[in-house]
């Protein structure tokens, strides 16, 4: 099954993250895992940090009316851009502006997160603009770690979380920490691009 990048138009949205190499790697990861995803019959899906909305739209184009699609972003422009992407691709995305999944009380069967993973000063994590798409704090993990610490509570028993990581995020340590919490961690896909070695991992309750 081939997954095409959904349509999007960010001309009116200079503050929203333009789908980039990381986004495309993520779409390739979903394509690679699509059979598993379909067979697991997810009911509740959520993308955190949806930006343009293309990742969750790609998932929705495959699973269609068999699942519901929540998505969140702290950037208000990203939420608007995502609803536009939903219209362009005729998929029903439910976007809410919030931090991570803080205000959603359900457990998700599938979570997607392409986080701000760049190593920066902690001080660069401020406001709700384009900098929040990149700024990941000292190890590029300030936002990612908050999600992982909470993953047990927001993932359903058979749920899977797909997460993009950068080599410098110290993936070995993440694996160890999550392993201790009883998570199974599996590499889905990796790619070296100029200046970055990117990975998409999936986390499930073992």
């Amino acid at each position: 099954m081939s997954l095409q990048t959904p349509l999007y138009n960010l001309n009116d949205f200079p503050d929203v993250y333009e789908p980039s190499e990381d986004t495309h790697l993520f779409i390739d990861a979903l394509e690679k895992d699509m059979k598993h995803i379909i067979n697991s019959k997810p009911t509740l899906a959520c993308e955190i940090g949806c930006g343009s909305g293309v990742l969750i739209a790609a998932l929705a184009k495959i699973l269609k009316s068999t699942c519901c699609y929540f998505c969140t972003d702290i950037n208000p422009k990203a939420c608007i851009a995502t609803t536009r992407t939903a219209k362009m691709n005729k998929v029903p995305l439910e976007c809410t502006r919030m931090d991570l999944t803080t205000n959603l009380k359900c457990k998700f069967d599938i979570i997607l997160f392409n986080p701000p993973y760049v190593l920066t000063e902690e001080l660069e994590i401020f406001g709700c603009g384009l900098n929040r798409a990149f700024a990941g704090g000292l190890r590029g993990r300030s936002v990612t770690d908050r999600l992982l610490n909470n993953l047990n509570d927001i993932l359903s028993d058979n749920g899977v979380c797909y997460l993009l990581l950068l080599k410098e995020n110290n993936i070995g340590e993440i694996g160890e920490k999550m392993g201790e919490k009883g998570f199974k961690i599996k590499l889905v896909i990796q790619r070296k691009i100029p200046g970055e070695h990117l990975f998409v991992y999936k986390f499930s309750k073992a």
Partner: protein
Amino acid sequence: MKLLTHNMLTSKCVKGVNVGYPLTINASDVRVADVDFNPDFISRLIPKIDWPVLYNAAESLGHVEDLPKETPVNYENNEEFLKKAHRALLEVEVVHGELVCPESGRKFPINNGIPNMLLNEDEV
């Protein structure tokens, strides 16, 4: 915002709030959209729904129609019921309005169908 989303949203993260659920809806613009009906999906979704909260939300928007107050037994095979559930969960949308925290009274605006639940740092 669909009523499905309303069914999942809480304001628990507000400082001093214990449950923050369900949020009150004050709607100024409600629309009914056409969404593909998938009975198998709706059957899987219903156990995850707080039904009384859905019923009351639909009622408060004037869209309860003939939605039952409780889910019937063997609803998986009750297509008529599943269609009503589908309509309430996925087709009724709040385009403009606000959500109100039942404990603190904090208001969360909904604009163009997008609720803004983000808090200021001093509220968490």
